[in-house]
């Protein structure tokens, strides 16, 4: 789908910190999923082999907690960066380049569905972040908080049951498991397929690793953003313009 003979003018889409955090979170999340499901399905044959390899039930718990802290530290760093961006760099967290969900996302979603069913000739005009990208982001960001809290309930049950009823620990166990199941399905299947196998980006959308998008990619995938960039040179996406 990529035409290399087009003008290769690139723009920065993700900063180094965002790229780094994405890689670290991907590692942490995969580790959490492996160790977590190894805990949940400990009787399955292959898990017993894995469990032996990772140092038994205790080893798996320690690893799971390590990955949990590791991943959450990434979330905290991201949160700190948001403050830095807003307060020191005087950046804007709202507007067309924002991650915040808005009414237009619902509209583009409906238009997109209409496009899928051939009720519309062209795909809708996505902004810097399309609705599914926002979903990916917020699913993880909110999910980390809830998984974190239920996880802490199980890590320090004595502390939490000193002021909460004991069945909160059982609830936490249940919710932690089902949310983990959901998160793994969303991240490992939906997210991975959307960024690789979707015809628009096939074989893969590598912008989260290179940090760069070409002009053509912006125009094709985020026409709304390109409009905004053309309308004013202070568009949120224009951090650094390079030609390679």
């Amino acid at each position, binding site marked *: 789908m990529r035409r290399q003979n087009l003008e290769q003018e690139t723009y920065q889409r993700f*900063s*180094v*910190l965002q*790229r*780094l955090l994405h890689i670290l979170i991907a590692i942490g999340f995969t580790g959490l999923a492996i160790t977590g499901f190894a805990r949940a399905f400990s009787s399955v044959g292959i898990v017993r082999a894995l469990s032996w390899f990772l*140092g038994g039930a205790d*080893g798996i718990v*320690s690893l799971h907690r390590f990955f949990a802290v590791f991943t959450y530290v990434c979330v905290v760093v991201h949160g700190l960066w948001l403050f830095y961006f807003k307060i*020191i*760099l005087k950046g804007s967290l709202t507007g067309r380049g924002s991650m915040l969900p808005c009414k237009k996302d619902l509209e583009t979603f409906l238009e997109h569905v209409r496009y899928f069913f051939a009720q519309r000739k062209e795909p809708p005009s996505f902004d810097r972040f399309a609705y599914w990208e926002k979903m990916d982001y917020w699913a993880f960001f909110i999910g980390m908080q809830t998984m974190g809290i239920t996880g802490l309930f199980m890590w320090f049950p004595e502390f939490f049951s000193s002021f909460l009823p004991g069945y909160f620990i059982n609830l936490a166990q249940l919710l932690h498991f089902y949310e983990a199941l959901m998160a793994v399905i969303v991240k490992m299947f939906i997210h991975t397929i959307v960024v690789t196998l979707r015809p628009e980006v096939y074989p893969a959308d590598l912008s989260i*690793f290179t*940090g760069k998008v070409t002009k053509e990619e912006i125009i094709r995938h985020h026409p709304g953003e390109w409009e905004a960039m053309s309308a004013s040179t202070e568009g949120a996406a224009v951090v*650094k313009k390079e030609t390679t």
Partner: protein
Amino acid sequence: MKTRFLVLALATGAIALSLFALWTVRTPRTEQPLQCLDCHRSRNINTNEGIQSSQAFCYECHKQPDCQRSLGTRKVSLQVESADFRNSRHQYVACIHCHTDVARSPHKSVLGVQCLGCHPVGGDGPVHSEHLRVRCEACHTASPFVERDQPGGPIKLAHVTPDGVPISLAAHKQTDVGNKEFCDRCHHAGNMVGAPAAVLPSKSFLCIVCHYSPLAIGHPMFWAALIIGLIGLAGLICFWFRGSVEAEKVSAHKKLSLGSELVWSKVFSREFFSILKTIFLDVLLQRRILAAGVRRWAIHSLIYYSFLARFLLSVFTLIVQKTSPGSQLALSLIDKNNGFIAATNDVLGLFILVGVLWALLMRFYVKPDYVETKEQDTFALALIGLLTLTGFLAEGMRIYITGIPVDVAASSFVGYLCSRLFALADLGWQTVYGYMWYFHAACWAVFIAYLPFGKLRHIVTTPLSLLINYKKA
């Protein structure tokens, strides 16, 4: 004919079997004491029922007021008040779970109580790895009397007071270990168990560069050193990011952004291998110093590799201790009297000392043209030399006052030589040891605090500049 053969065979078999049975019964079993539970039904002491019934079996005798044993002419009560024990932490543990060698004839404990079956050594709290030659119950039991029955043997609870009155230890009362007073049973001037006179703080995490240490900063001295060092480092980094890029006024962010972009593009490119080469040849193998001269490389390497090796060893120890506390490997690694650890640490310490002395010799007596000695060079060298020297002295004093037997102590050969020197005249080493420990620790605190300011800054800056200039290699 056939029947007769069969009968004969059966009879021979029966005789052979009974002879064998007779032989096994007649074989005297003097080597091993008789185990009660070999014949009596063994309870499953991992279940509550088993624990209750096992405890009841012991109480059968041990609740009697006349349950006692003789110690010379005196009698020691072995009566266990079940009410006492029911209130203790170990109320749901069977007696024979800890007193592992009592269920046998003769009914006498040789090993004493066994804590390590459940509790790992040094699993919690930094204090444990310093007390590997002290039995658990010597500190954790309320009885204040401790003794060491043979030189170099473990320190354990005494069964008689210093006045010779027998003590009953059957109460199972534990000390409040949050209370510092329980340290005083050993750590006072003139103690007989070979403990330093003062209660010393635990090592700090900063000590990890040379010693296995807990994950806590610990003493205020180390906090101060860490804060000063970090402020200095922050100042250094701020200095690097000063100045403007592309004629902007405020450019720290710009510099960071451009710098990180550059690092990213190098790491994910083929140049990564040339960077690896720089790390290996220039940072690890010190190629540039070697090019300047073998002697200079040797002096630097004696210090640098020794520190590096001790650092790697302590980090390895920390990882093993955190992942499998109580394992044989972890126990050997945290034990500073262990032959391998003691010898390694002494050899490396000696290398550092030789390196420092050689460098001082070059700077002050040989004075080659290329050497330019400033105050900060002398200070850094003197600091490292003092650090190593006090380390050896403290080790020697420790070996002397704790009375470690020569076959164990000989592995730490420098420390053992020092201990022989101290043995010539006892100038109250139990007290001096505390001061020596503080002095050694203070030297390291100064090292950490001074790191970003003087000569020692090269530990951070030289590898960085080598990496930045990797293309010039």
